[in-house]
């Protein structure tokens, strides 16, 4: 049995549902397929931090573009999406890091992102529970937090309102040459297939240059007001983490419920979802270092998730050279929640042959096709391990 449509989106995570909505509202007949409900994979494991990042000019372009798209959508988001423009505080612990604060401010300004430098006193006033002394911070007031599973469910509902169909509880066996085969024996035919499966996108396309990068998060009971902004350390300049593959960074988020999400960790080569207790302990130690009071809070849960990491820390958005029907919207590593909306715009404009609002080239999958095989390359050099927002 087979049915046909214009686009099949594989993966109902935040990236897949954003793409499906964009496809549907541009008039494409769209089907979304996923094994579980909306936002049940890495989306659910993620923090839900909408953040502008500047590891590279292309990352800055995509994150600032997407952050703006989220702000434009904010009024439409339902209450359960818990969107809150609480801002990010990039915390500097010494004068060297304050230099980075000022550099970062200049870079953000170039992308039209307003920021504010907080001196030590102002930081202590903004976040009284941070350890003292700290040198200061960069406030990005337009960064936000949201609850990813409900936000994703909203995106899916919008897609369906615009005419998309959702097939859940269906595993995709293969997707190539315009045919998507499902585990119930049915087949979907479409001239365009979007692989939006995150870390699992390699299961359908083993040659993709994507590696799983595992992360841990812990969540506390409710302590309203303890932390007011998303807090991220700026300590990567001299951090020892940058040279090892496993690392932790201080990254704490206040939820609307008053709960605190504690992150973050990064780990290559871990394939099982179990908790790595040594890494978890380091992550918590880091959090306690910045927020001494957090140790006395009740932790309710710890979980893990897998980011889809590419060698250059940029996502894969656009056509896949090996198969005319295949498009990619994957490889977002820790920025899938933020860049989902921007990804959808870039992807669908590429599909329809339209001009994009930001240059699409840096994210095109064929950037890895030129130098032999980007795939299977185990020696992935990450040039700067930033304390980048970790959504997992």
């Amino acid at each position, binding site marked *: 049995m087979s049915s046909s449509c214009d686009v099949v989106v594989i993966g109902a995570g935040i990236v897949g549902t954003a793409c499906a909505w964009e496809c549907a509202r541009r008039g494409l007949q769209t089907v979304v397929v996923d094994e*579980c*409900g909306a*936002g*049940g994979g890495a989306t*659910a494991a993620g923090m839900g931090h909408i953040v502008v990042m500047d590891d590279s000019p292309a990352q800055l372009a995509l994150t600032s573009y997407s952050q703006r798209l989220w702000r434009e959508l904010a009024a439409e988001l339902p209450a*359960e999406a818990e969107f809150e423009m609480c801002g990010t505080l990039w915390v500097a612990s010494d004068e060297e890091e304050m230099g980075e604060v000022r550099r970062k401010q200049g870079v953000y300004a170039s992308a039209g992102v307003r920021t504010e430098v907080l001196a030590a006193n102002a930081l202590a006033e903004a976040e009284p529970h941070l350890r003292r002394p700290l040198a200061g911070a960069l406030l990005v007031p337009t960064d936000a937090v949201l609850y990813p*599973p*409900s936000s994703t*469910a909203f995106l899916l509902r919008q897609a369906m309102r615009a005419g998309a169909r959702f097939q*859940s*509880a269906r595993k995709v066996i293969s997707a190539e040459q315009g045919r998507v085969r499902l585990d119930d024996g049915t087949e979907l035919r479409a001239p365009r297939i979007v692989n939006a499966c995150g870390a699992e996108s390699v299961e359908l396309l083993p040659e993709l240059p994507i590696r799983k990068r595992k992360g841990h998060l*812990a969540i*506390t*009971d409710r302590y309203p007001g303890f932390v007011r902004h998303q807090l991220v350390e700026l300590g990567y300049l001299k951090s020892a983490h940058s040279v090892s593959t496993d690392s932790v960074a201080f990254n704490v988020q206040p939820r609307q419920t008053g709960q605190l999400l*504690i992150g973050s960790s990064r780990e290559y080569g871990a394939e099982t979802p179990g*908790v790595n*207790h*040594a890494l*978890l*302990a*380091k992550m*918590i*130690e880091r*959090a*306690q270092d910045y927020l001494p009071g*957090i*140790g*006395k*809070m*009740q*932790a*309710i*849960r*710890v*979980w893990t998730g897998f980011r889809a990491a590419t060698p250059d820390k940029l996502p894969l958005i656009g056509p896949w050279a090996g198969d005319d029907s295949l498009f990619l919207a994957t490889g977002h590593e820790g920025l899938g929640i933020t860049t989902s909306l921007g990804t959808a715009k870039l992807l669908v404009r590429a599909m329809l042959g339209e001009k994009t609002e930001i240059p699409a080239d840096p994210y095109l999958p064929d950037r890895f096709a030129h130098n032999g095989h980007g795939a299977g390359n185990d020696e992935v050099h990450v040039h700067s391990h930033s304390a980048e927002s970790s959504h997992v």
Partner: protein
Amino acid sequence: MKDSFDILVVGAGPAGIAAAVSAAACGKRVGLVDDNPAAGGQIWRSGGEVPDDAQRWIAMLEASSVARLQGWRVFDAPRSGVLHAERGDGECGELCYKNLILATGARERFLPFPGWTLPNVMGAGGLDALVRGGVPIAGKRVVVAGTGPLLLAVAAHLKRHGARIVAVCEQAPLSRLVRFASRLLGEPAKLRQGAEYRIAIRGARYLTGCWIVAAHGRDRVESVRLRQGSKQWDVACDFVGCGFHLVPNIELPALLGCRIDHGFVSVDDSMQTSVPGVYCVGEPTGIGGVELAVLEGEIAGRAAAGRADEARKHAQRRRGKLGFLRALQEVCTLDPQLRSLPTADTRICRCEDVRLVSLDGHNTWRDAKLQTRCGMGPCQGRVCGPATEFLFGWRVESVRPPIFPALVSSLGSACEADGLQQNSAPQGASPAFEKETL
């Protein structure tokens, strides 16, 4: 705190005490850890009258060499052979073992109905525990409802404390109860006990095929509406104890990777789970009551101590008693009509205030949890998980650490345990925690 044991027993209820005493009698170094300040578990909890059996076992425990860690709650199993526990004051402990015996007991199953979250509506066992703890019940009108033998035991106990038992409502129909009683003919002690409970609460209405459809009241419960067949009527009361049999506490066995079959931990004849060296006894292997739990503890204690022959002898006795377990399971089977008790507005998850209406349309526990927060609160789904399993057929899947809320610093202290700091206490060191027990 750090200590190691040949055999570590988790849970100081009947099964755990029997396991610890039996293992210690074999000359092993045994630790018994429990989150309550006193041994006895939910069923032999001190306060009020303690059954002869309990007194005997607790006396044996006190006379034994078992190291008691009372007031420590196990929250994580960071690696093979190690558990992490936290004390009420936030101190974190590392407990190492060669063999482990899990005697984690059971909790009451709650089914939501309109008004079930009103003050003074609580679990039958919970109400019983409050009274044992000194809450005055004399002269209060009490309705006991739900299913299982616990209802009669609780009603009888409350009555002895002066409560006016207005009604005992057992959801199982009379025909099934009669069948259950007939299967107990081979167990005169159990029949006698049941009869004694009935006599103790004479004067109170014992209703079968009957349940509470709603509780009413302003600041606390003032009345309940009962249904039996097509009849419905209101009964005034001050307290409601309502429990629908028991749910095994399988979180720790599941975290350790023990195979779970139909909601219970799978064990062999020696009570060993699918994980070598990890044993499980008592209710987590099947709700079978105190007598069976003690027997299982005796088996596992000996088996874990390497006395296979002795364990085998007890194992034969155990097989003879599994009939009661099955009979109990049958009589407590929930009437499908109970699924229609909650209305759209009824709270299903108390921690996160999730009502029935928002759970409609979700296909799995995970989907519902992610989209509604059902089960995401401090009780970690221990109450609403079993309820939604009955209401929707959802299975609670993965178990993650911490299995009980623990201090963030306790989670972080895993680093010492994982050898990231070199100066942790040497293996076999025996800190003075024994002084801290009762």
